[in-house]
């Protein structure tokens, strides 16, 4: 455990060393919150509620989903490509800790150091858009559980995707495509309930919605107790399936290691 903590701390220091970059990211986040809030207010117009979703709920969704999405789906969502491209993966492999565990520990460290930035942005997001208390005490508990599971899903997903670098070496464009698809289908920009039928079905069968949409919808009471339990079950299922997939991909990736400039 101590080894993992050391790795996490190391990555957290990297984030704090470049804190100015994260402050800039926050401006982008707040601009997005403001834009989405304006767009929803505009399309709601005089109506208080559309399809049973009150405007206040929608604005709270924007605040929560945007800030969470920013924290859970960062611009550099996996550390693997850099390690592989620069050949530093060679050093990682001789460490007495598994490579995937190292990557996960580093990712957690980075998120821990980024979280204060997200918390600092939250009051501004609330001002620009809106906020609502949790639908019920039970919803608050369900939210925290679901949030943790959502983080687990996004972390394992990024590991699986990052491991692809062992085959592709450097295809930056693929990572941008992945990031945009992941952000959109996670519900960070538009909640699943306002997606047209076919798109919603696609979003529902993919793991991305378990990252941002599920916790936010539980918090706002858009999923009742039964649906919330089911949704967290789906999240657990994704963590399990993706972890197995990561294991499988890793066992094959190991045979593809090329250490450059060793």
């Amino acid at each position: 455990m101590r080894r993992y903590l050391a790795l996490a701390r190391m990555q957290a220091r990297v984030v704090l060393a470049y804190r100015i970059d994260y402050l800039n990211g926050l401006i982008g986040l707040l601009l997005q919150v403001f834009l989405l809030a304006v767009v929803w207010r505009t399309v709601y117009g005089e109506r208080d509620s559309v399809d049973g979703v009150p405007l206040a709920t929608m604005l709270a969704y924007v605040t929560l989903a945007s800030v969470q999405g920013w924290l859970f789906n960062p611009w550099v969502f996996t550390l693997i490509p850099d390690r592989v491209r620069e050949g530093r993966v060679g050093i990682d492999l001789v460490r007495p800790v598994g490579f995937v565990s190292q990557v996960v520990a580093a990712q957690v460290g980075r998120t821990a150091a980024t979280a204060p930035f997200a918390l600092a942005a939250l009051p501004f997001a609330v001002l620009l858009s809106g906020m609502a208390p949790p639908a019920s005490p039970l919803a608050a508990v369900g939210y925290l559980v679901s949030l943790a599971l959502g983080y687990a899903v996004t972390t394992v997903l990024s590991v699986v995707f990052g491991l692809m670098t062992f085959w592709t070496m450097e295809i930056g464009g693929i990572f941008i495509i992945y990031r945009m698809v992941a952000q959109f289908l996670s519900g960070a920009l538009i909640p699943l309930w306002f997606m047209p039928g076919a798109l919603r079905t696609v979003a529902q069968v993919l793991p991305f919605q378990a990252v941002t949409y599920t916790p936010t919808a539980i918090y706002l009471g858009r999923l009742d107790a039964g649906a919330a339990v089911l949704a967290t079950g789906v999240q657990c299922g994704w963590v399990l399936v993706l972890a197995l997939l990561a294991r499988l991909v890793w066992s094959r990736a190991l045979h593809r290691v090329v250490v450059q400039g060793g």
Partner: protein
Amino acid sequence: MVERIRRTVRVWAALARAGLRTELQYRANFAFGILGGLALQGAGLAVIGTILARFQQIGGWSLPELMLLYGMRLTSHGLWTLPCSNLMVIDTAVREAEFDRYLTRPVAPFVQLVTRRLPVTTISDLLGGLAILGVALATTHLHWTLPRVLLLGLALVGGALVELSGQTAIAGLAFRMLSTGSLKFTLDDVFNTFGNYPTKIFGPAARWALTVVLPLAFASYVPATVLLGRTGELWIPVWLAWAAPAVGVALFVAAYRFWRSQLNRYASSGH
């Protein structure tokens, strides 16, 4: 003057060819670079399309109308990023004293800066923008007259100049500040977020700010209202709306002069 422009274009074309050759060494990477760029810009349109699927309009603008605005904005964006996006790396050029070289060569330093390397993948902005614009033009059924066609063409260039002048002004600050990354990315963010929506929806305060302080409205929104016959919703006179491309030119001239004046502040880094 004409000779100077011709030489600049020749230098630029030679660099473009060199840049393309470099990129084609890694074909898969180049192709995915372009697809990545398209995904980045397409995501914004996907949001609009998804919202429109449920709400039919945003501030009275239908999907084809919003696509016209989006296509104009993205095309303008591509028109400035393809030739000039090296402006974004001015911090490095100043800090590492690359400007020493620029000042001794017989070509304008600005041209040397923007041509230091050509990022060919930014062509995705232009390709995406033109594709969206094409679809929008095919679905809006506008009444086209010669002045309107001219306005569209000039507005695309004018929109590019509005954004370029903002980036040029910030680049001018780099000679003294040395670090302007945050300003540049924020400006880029503002254009990429607010530029794609009708400016009027942002409310009176932001509306004026985006007309006077940061004249983003003139880039694509104002000329789009003329083309779509929506000038009724504007808060500026209609003749000024027609003159939107000229606003872009005026802004760029002012920004370039500012940049030039700041060049005198350049203090090379100690070697």
